[in-house]
C-alpha cells in the first residue's frame, strides 16, 4: 500500500469541541480526499484537494473545513463537533490517470470519531 497515515485512529470527544484529523502521505500524490463512511450511506466525499492551498467541497461538506499547506498533509477540521459527525473518516490519495479521466484512490486506515 501507498504511504498514507491517518491520525488519530480513534477519538472520542464531546459535542461542541473542535476536532482535527490529519492525513499524511509520503507518495507526493497531487490529490487528497476526505470521505466519511456511515452504515447505509457508503462512502461520501467531504472535501478534496488538488494541490497545495487548492481545495473544493464534496457532497457533505457542511460543518467541515480543510487545509493543505504542504503536499503531504491534508487536515480535516470539525469546528464544533456534533453527534451527527460520529463516523469513520477515510483519507484517500491519488494521481491523475489522464487516459481514463478519473483517479484511482488509495485509502488510509481510517479514523473512528465518536461525538458524545
Amino acid at each position, binding site marked *: 500500500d501507498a504511504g498514507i497515515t491517518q491520525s488519530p485512529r480513534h477519538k472520542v470527544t464531546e459535542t461542541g469541541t473542535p476536532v482535527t484529523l490529519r492525513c499524511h502521505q509520503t507518495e507526493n500524490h497531487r490529490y487528497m480526499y476526505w470521505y466519511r463512511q456511515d452504515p447505509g450511506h457508503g462512502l461520501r*466525499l467531504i472535501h*478534496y484537494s488538488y494541490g497545495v492551498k487548492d481545495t473544493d467541497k464534496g457532497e457533505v461538506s457542511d460543518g467541515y473545513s480543510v487545509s493543505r499547506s504542504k503536499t503531504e498533509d491534508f487536515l480535516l477540521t470539525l469546528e464544533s463537533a456534533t453527534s451527527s459527525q460520529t463516523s469513520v473518516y477515510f483519507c484517500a490519495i491519488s494521481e491523475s490517470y489522464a487516459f481514463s479521466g*478519473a483517479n484511482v*484512490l488509495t*485509502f488510509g486506515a481510517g479514523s473512528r470519531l465518536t461525538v458524545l
Partner: protein
Amino acid sequence: GQQVMQIPQYQHVQEGEDFTTYCNSSTTLSNIQWYKQRPGGHPVFLIQLVKSGEVKKQKRLTFQFGEAKKNSSLHITATQTTDVGTYFCAGSEYGGSQGNLIFGKGTKLSVKP
C-alpha cells in the same frame, strides 16, 4: 445529480457458490472502479473499467462494464471465505470535476464455510 445504485445490499452465500453485485448509474459514466473493504479495514482498489462492453478478469473475479456505460457488475465464481467483505463500485461522469467519483452504497458479502 449523479447517483450510483448498487444491489443487493447484503448477500449471504455458502462457500463455493457464486456471487454477483450490480451497479447502476443514472447517467453515462466515463469509467467505473471497484473496491473491496474487508471487515474493519479500508477500501482497496480492485479494478477500473473504461471501455463500453469491457470485461476484465482477476482470477475468480469477473468485472463487466455495460454497453451504454451506465451499469457494471462484479461476479465471483466459487466464493471462498477470503472473499468476505463489502464491495463498492464508484463511477465518474464525463467532464466532471476531479472529486466527482460517486460511490455506490456497497454490497456486503458473507460466506458460510
